C-alpha cells in the first residue's frame, strides 16, 4: 500500500471505531500517534526517538495556548450561569401578555424566548428542557397541536448555537483560521433571519389552520399596557442589554471575544444575583432601586468622559466598580442563586471545556498525521477528479455534513469532519467565512434529525406521556425543511452572510 492509501484506511478505520462508541478524543489521539509512528519510522532508530512524540506534545501545547479557544470555557460559563437565573417563566409570561392577540401567540412567544435565551446561554439541552417544562404544558392546555408545540421548542432551542455569540462558531474559527469576530458578524443576519422565517411559518400555519393553534382565552391575555410594559422591561431588559453589550463590544473591536465573554459572565453573575434576591425584604428593594437610579445617572456620564473627552479622572470609575461589587454582595444574603449553583456552573464548565478541548488535541494530532501520510491530498485529488463546479462541491459538502448530523453530534462534525473540506474551499473559490455560516446553519438539523437528535429526546423526557416521540420528530420536520430552504436562499444571495462583515470591517 502507498502512504496515501494508508492515510485513507486510517480514516475508514477511524469511522469504524467511532461507531463502536469509544470516547472520540482518545481514539483520535491513539490513531494519530500509531499512524504517525509509521509515517515517521526510520529503520534502526530507537523507538522513543520517533518524531511523532514531539509532534503529539507540540499539538497538545498548541491547543492549550490557543488564543481563540480560550473563549469556549468563558462563554460556556456565562451560559451555565444564565441558565440558573430564574427569569425564563417571567419572560414567557410577559410575552404571552404582550402578543396574546396574534395567531399562534404562544408558539411565537416560545420561539422568541428560545431564541433570546439561547443567544445568551447557548446550551441547547437546558433551553429545551426548561421550555419543555414551561411552554409545552401551557401550549397543550391552550389546545395547541402536539406536533406544532413540540416542534417549536426543539427548533427554537437549537437556535442558540447558531446566533452569535455561539461556541460553535468559535470552534469553526479555531479550525478554519477565520476570525471569530467576522464569523459572528457573518452569522448575525442569517441567525435572526432563520428565527424570523420560523416565526413567519408558525404565524402562517396558525392562520391557515386555526384549529392547530387556538386563540388564548381573553382573560389570559388581557392586561393594562402599563403592566405589559413593566413586565417586558423587567424580564427582557437585563438579558437583552447584556447580550447587546457582549456582541457590540465584539463587533466594534473594543475587546476580544474572550474579554467580552468574561464581561458577559460577570454581568450574568450580577443578573443572577439580582433576580435571585429576596424582594420581600425592603432592604433588597431599596438596594436595587438605588443602584438602578445611580447607574442611570452615572453611566451616560462615564461613557461621556471616555468618548468626548470630558474632564477625566480615575476615581469615578473605581468608585463605580466598588459600588457595583458591594451592592450585589449585599444582595447575596438569602439569595436563590446560591453558592451551590455557582459551583454547579464552575464544575460543568470545566467538564464541557475539557470535553471540547481534548477533542481538539486528538483531532490536531490525527489530522497532522493524516496530512503527513498524504491522505488529505488524496481526498483533494479525488474530489477534484469528480469535475464538480463550485455549486456541486457545496452541495456535496453540505449533503455529507447533513447526513453526518444524523448519527453524530455537532462537536464531532465541526472538529473532525469539517477540516477535511477546508483545504478544498480554495480550489472552488468558496469563502471560508461563507462556508462556516452554511455549516452552522446545516448543523441546526443535526439536533433535530433522528436517530440521534438531542432536542427531541430531551423534550420527550419532560413532555407529558400523551406527546409521543414520533409526534415530536414529525413536529421538527418542517423546521429541517425551512433550514434547507434557507441555506438555498443564502447560497443564492451570499450577501446575507457577507454583507455585514464587509460593512463593519471593510
Amino acid at each position, binding site marked *: 500500500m502507498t502512504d496515501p492509501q494508508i492515510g485513507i484506511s486510517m480514516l475508514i478505520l477511524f469511522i469504524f471505531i467511532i*461507531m463502536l*462508541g469509544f470516547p472520540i478524543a482518545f481514539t483520535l489521539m491513539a490513531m494519530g500517534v500509531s499512524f504517525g509512528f509509521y509515517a515517521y519510522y526510520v529503520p534502526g532508530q530507537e523507538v522513543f526517538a520517533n518524531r511523532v512524540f514531539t509532534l503529539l506534545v507540540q499539538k497538545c*501545547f498548541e491547543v*492549550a*495556548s490557543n*488564543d481563540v479557544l*480560550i473563549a469556549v470555557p468563558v462563554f460556556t460559563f456565562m451560559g451555565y450561569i444564565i441558565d440558573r437565573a430564574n427569569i425564563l417563566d417571567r419572560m414567557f409570561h410577559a410575552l404571552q401578555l404582550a402578543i396574546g392577540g396574534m395567531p399562534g401567540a404562544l408558539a411565537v412567544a416560545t420561539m422568541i424566548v428560545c431564541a433570546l435565551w439561547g443567544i445568551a446561554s447557548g446550551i441547547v439541552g437546558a433551553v429545551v428542557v426548561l421550555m419543555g417544562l414551561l411552554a409545552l404544558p401551557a401550549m397543550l392546555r391552550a389546545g395547541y397541536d402536539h406536533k406544532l408545540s413540540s416542534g417549536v421548542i426543539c427548533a427554537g432551542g437549537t437556535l442558540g448555537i447558531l446566533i452569535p455569540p455561539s461556541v460553535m462558531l468559535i470552534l469553526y474559527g479555531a479550525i478554519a483560521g477565520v476570525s471569530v469576530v467576522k464569523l459572528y458578524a457573518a452569522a448575525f443576519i442569517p441567525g435572526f433571519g432563520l428565527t424570523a422565517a420560523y416565526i413567519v411559518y408558525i404565524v402562517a400555519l396558525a392562520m391557515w389552520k386555526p384549529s392547530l393553534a387556538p386563540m388564548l382565552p381573553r382573560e389570559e391575555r388581557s392586561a393594562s399596557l402599563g403592566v405589559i410594559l413593566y413586565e417586558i422591561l423587567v424580564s427582557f431588559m437585563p438579558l437583552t442589554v447584556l447580550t447587546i453589550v457582549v456582541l457590540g463590544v465584539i463587533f466594534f473591536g473594543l475587546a476580544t471575544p474572550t*474579554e467580552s465573554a468574561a464581561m458577559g459572565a460577570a454581568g450574568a453573575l450580577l443578573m443572577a444575583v439580582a433576580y435571585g434576591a429576596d424582594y420581600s425584604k425592603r432592604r433588597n428593594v431599596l438596594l436595587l432601586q438605588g443602584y438602578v437610579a445611580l447607574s442611570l445617572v452615572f453611566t451616560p456620564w462615564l461613557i461621556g468622559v471616555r468618548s468626548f473627552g470630558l474632564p477625566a479622572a480615575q476615581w469615578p470609575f473605581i468608585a463605580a*466598580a466598588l459600588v457595583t461589587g458591594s451592592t450585589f454582595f449585599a444582595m447575596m444574603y438569602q439569595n436563590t442563586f446560591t453558592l451551590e449553583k455557582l459551583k454547579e456552573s464552575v*464544575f460543568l464548565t470545566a467538564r464541557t471545556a475539557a470535553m471540547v478541548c481534548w477533542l481538539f488535541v486528538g483531532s490536531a494530532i490525527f489530522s497532522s498525521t493524516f496530512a503527513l501520510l498524504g491522505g488529505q491530498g488524496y481526498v483533494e485529488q479525488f474530489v477534484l477528479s469528480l469535475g464538480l463546479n463550485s455549486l456541486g462541491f457545496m452541495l456535496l459538502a453540505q449533503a455529507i455534513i447533513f447526513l453526518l448530523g444524523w448519527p453524530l453530534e455537532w462537536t464531532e462534525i465541526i472538529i473532525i469532519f469539517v477540516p477535511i473540506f477546508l483545504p478544498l474551499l480554495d480550489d472552488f473559490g468558496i469563502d471560508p467565512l461563507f462556508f462556516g455560516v452554511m455549516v452552522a446553519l446545516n448543523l441546526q438539523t443535526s439536533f433535530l434529525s433522528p436517530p440521534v437528535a438531542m432536542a427531541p429526546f430531551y423534550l420527550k423526557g419532560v413532555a407529558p406521556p400523551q406527546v409521543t416521540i414520533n409526534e415530536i420528530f414529525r413536529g421538527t420536520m418542517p423546521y429541517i425543511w425551512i433550514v434547507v430552504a434557507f441555506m438555498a436562499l443564502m447560497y443564492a444571495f451570499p450577501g446575507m452572510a457577507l454583507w455585514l462583515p464587509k460593512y463593519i470591517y471593510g
Partner: protein
Amino acid sequence: MANNAQTRTNRALMCIDSLSTSVGKSFAWLILVLTTAMTYEVFVRYALNAPTTWAFDFSYITYGALFLMAGAYTLSRNAHVRGDFLYRSWRPRTQALVDLMLYITFFLPGVSALAYSGWGYAATSVRFREVSIFSPAGIPIFPLKCLIPVAGMLLLIQGVAEIIRCGICIRNGAWPQRLHDVEEMETVILHEQEYLREHEKQDRHG
C-alpha cells in the same frame, strides 16, 4: 474472600475517582480567576487607560491549565463525547467488552505517549525557565508545559479505573455506580421527571 476483594477494588476505584475529581474541581475554579482577570483587564484598559502587560499570557495559561487538568475528571464522569448511537442500544456487558478492548489497545498507548513525550517537553522548558514571548512582562510558561505530563498521568490512572469498571461490568452484567456529582440541568430535570412518573404509577397501583 471474594467479598473482601470486591470491597478492595471498590475502594481503589473510589480513590482514583476522587483523585481525578478533586484535581479537576480545584482547577475548575480557574474559570472564576479567568473571568475576573479579563474583566479587570478591560476595566483598567478603558476606565483607567492603563492596560496590563500580563493579561493575554495569563488568560491562555489559565485556560490551558483548566482544561488539561479537567480531562481525567471528565473521564471519571464518562463525559467525553462518544459517537454512541449504536453503543447506547447494546447490553451493558457488550458495552463493557468493547470498551475494555479499546481502552487497552487505544487509550493506554495514546495517553502513555502523551505522558511520556510531555515529560521531556516539560523538562526542557523547566531547564530554561521558559517565559512567554508575547509580552515584555516575562510571564513564565513552563508551569503550563509541566501540566501536560501531569494531565497525561492523571488520565492514565483514571483509564485504569475505567478498565476495572469494565471488568466489574463484564462480571456482574451491570455498570457499577459512580460517585455523585453535579449534573447538567437537563439530566437533573429528566431524572426528576422520571422519578415523579414512577411515583405516580406506584400511587395508582397502591
